[in-house]
């Protein structure tokens, strides 16, 4: 396992890169997995039925972008958890614990810590101030045209990089799990994504997320229980046997090399915590509930689900050390200790097969496919809303577009994004797309988060400051990633990276804050004065929810 890549990307995402690593590409296509395909067909038919049902209820833009604000806190909590836990969380982190032990658990902790921060800093004000997208808030009291354009560009950049990384990972994974051709896998994922989002909008996307989160937790728990059964449900037995078998021995539960460098660890954790608070598809979910109260509840539920599942993953990783690493049938040529069949990421799948047979393997494969679909649908919806709501309706039409026009644009935007995702997925089939996820999180933490945060918390932010901070964060995060090992060495094949750290947040995020601060302070224009004064009203609305958009009546 490539430790540097893991460092760069952070938990769940990293495995996207693993999915696309050369080792995986070389892995042979698996024979057609009929159990998995059957169960996946059931999932697809069911979710398409939901999409059909949702399409009949999606008439207004509010329905399309925010499900009319009619999602309950509990439902949204599950959907948030679904958005956050990608296929790579399950597969990648289980694999990381299998190889490196404690390092995997530390990742899970870092990946979890963003949630209470999100609850305390963002949830309330975001729900009270926004309507459909986070750009609603960024541009609340600033220049609509310029600031919204900047926020939409930040959104779209994050969505595109994340989407392509997911698509490439998905293609590789589906090829392995289902024995389908890479291109066919991309077409299926892209087509289903377009169907869900174009016809069902946020309602269908939310239900796809909810079902997937539920299935993922049930599947993971089932494998965990069956695996723990082999140890008589004793953590003591599990750890003793894992330490006896694993090459690390007693050091299995001590930190390894992954986070040895404090600066890299700091940059990574900053990127994970604040990148989460800048991901457009996560932020968008706060507008699907009726008010701040439900929004807070939904984050609490999501925190609980994610915390629970991350600890299940820890047990899965430890159990697979004992169960999978000893079984020759999971290794190429039957050599234990050699190369795992299908590559390192398949540990969780082999564990499922070992404890629950082909049925459980098929079920978990289907859940993984469903997970990919749900994540890309959420991304496509966030991208479509940035194009149709922010750029088309607000910037180009300046609020004069009719709902029907705006809705039509969202549908074309979704189709466009789907085609782009499939196209780029094919182009990047054999590229290590690790850098795209680093970029997505880096840009979310450096371009989206600082300006959004300052617009809600700092009276002094002006249009000039927001533009300077937003664009500098975007460009510096991109530049740092391009000059780092991830692109400079791994993609362009230079021998030495020009920027020593693979995670940009520690550097690009303060740059964005600094630029936003300095340019706002230096802005003495009359408009800047009015913008600062407008903060007072925004503050009251953010704190009390007076004037906030409510659930639309049906």
């Amino acid at each position, binding site marked *: 396992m490539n430790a540097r890549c893991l460092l760069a990307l952070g938990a769940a995402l990293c495995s996207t890169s693993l999915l696309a690593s050369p080792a995986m590409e070389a892995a042979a296509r698996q024979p057609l997995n009929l159990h998995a395909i059957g169960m996946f067909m059931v999932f697809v038919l069911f979710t398409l039925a939901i999409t059909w049902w949702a399409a009949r209820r999606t008439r207004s833009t509010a329905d399309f972008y925010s499900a009319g604000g009619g999602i309950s806190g509990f439902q949204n909590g599950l959907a948030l958890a679904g958005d956050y836990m990608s296929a790579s969380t399950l597969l990648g982190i289980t694999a990381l614990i299998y190889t490196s032990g*404690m390092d995997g*658990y*530390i990742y899970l*902790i*870092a990946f*979890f*810590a963003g*949630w*209470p*921060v999100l*609850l*305390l*800093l963002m949830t*309330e004000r975001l729900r009270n101030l926004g309507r459909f997208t986070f750009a609603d808030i960024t541009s609340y009291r600033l220049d609509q045209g310029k600031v919204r354009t900047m926020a939409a560009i930040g959104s779209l950049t994050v969505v595109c990089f994340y989407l392509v990384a997911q698509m490439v990972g998905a293609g590789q994974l589906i090829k392995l799990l289902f024995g389908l051709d890479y291109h066919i896998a991309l077409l299926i994922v892209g087509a289903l994504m377009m169907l869900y989002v174009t016809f069902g909008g946020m309602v269908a996307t939310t239900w796809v997320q909810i079902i997937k989160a539920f299935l993922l937790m049930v599947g993971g728990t089932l494998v965990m229980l069956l695996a723990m059964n082999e140890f008589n449900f004793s*953590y*003591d037995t599990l*750890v*003793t046997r894992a*330490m006896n078998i694993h090459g690390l021995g*007693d*050091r299995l*539960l*001590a*930190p390894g090399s992954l*986070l*040895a*460098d*404090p600066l890299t*660890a*700091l940059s990574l*954790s900053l990127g994970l915590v604040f990148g989460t608070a800048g991901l457009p598809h996560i932020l968008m979910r706060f507008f699907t509930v009726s008010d701040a*109260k439900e929004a*807070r*509840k939904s*984050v*609490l539920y999501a*925190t*609980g689900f994610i*915390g629970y599942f*991350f*600890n299940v993953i820890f047990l899965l990783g430890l159990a697979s050390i004992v169960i999978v690493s000893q079984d020759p049938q999971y290794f190429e040529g039957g050599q234990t200790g050699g190369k795992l069949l299908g590559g390192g990421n398949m540990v969780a799948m082999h564990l499922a097969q070992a404890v629950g047979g082909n049925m459980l393997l098929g079920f978990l494969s289907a859940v993984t496919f469903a997970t990919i679909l749900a994540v890309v649908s959420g991304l496509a919806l966030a991208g479509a809303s940035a194009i149709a709501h922010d750029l088309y309706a607000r910037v180009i039409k300046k609020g004069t577009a009719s709902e029907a026009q705006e809705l039509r644009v969202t549908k074309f935007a979704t189709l466009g994004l789907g085609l782009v995702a499939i196209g780029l997925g094919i182009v990047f089939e054999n590229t290590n797309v690790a850098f795209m996820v680093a970029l997505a999180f880096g840009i979310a933490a450096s371009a989206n988060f600082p300006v959004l945060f300052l617009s809600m918390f700092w009276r002094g932010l002006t249009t000039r400051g927001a533009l300077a901070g937003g664009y500098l964060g975007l460009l510096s995060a991109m530049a740092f990633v391009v000059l780092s090992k991830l692109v400079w060495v791994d993609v362009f094949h230079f021998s030495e990276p020009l920027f020593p750290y693979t995670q940009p947040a520690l550097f690009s995020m303060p740059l964005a804050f600094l630029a936003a601060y300095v340019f706002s302070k230096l802005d003495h224009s009359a408009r800047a004065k009015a913008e600062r004064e407008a903060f*007072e*009203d925004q*503050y*009251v*609305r953010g*704190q*009390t*929810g*007076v*004037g906030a958009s409510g659930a639309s009546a049906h």
Partner: protein
Amino acid sequence: MPSSSPLYARIRRNTQFIELVARRNRLTLALLLVIVAVFYAYMGLVSFWPELIGQRLAEGSTLTVGVVAGVSLFVFFCALSGFYVYRANGEFDRMTRELIAQVEQEEAR
């Protein structure tokens, strides 16, 4: 915008609003500091004192400091989130409702 600026101005001057905001901000800041301190203390130990993370709680025990602290951190963060939501959805939302009713009454007069 659905609400007029004078309403916001009236809320801003309301003593209960000032009280609400002060209380909630105090709680938010305190919890945030606790979360950041606990999280970075853990990450700091991982970077600077890895032996402690891997140490067994007692001779022959399979429970290690890092795992026990990690599980506690998950539980603690969930509990803190729960505590905030409990206060915000109960006490603070009640204060907000009262405050809005008060201001609307003033406005009607």
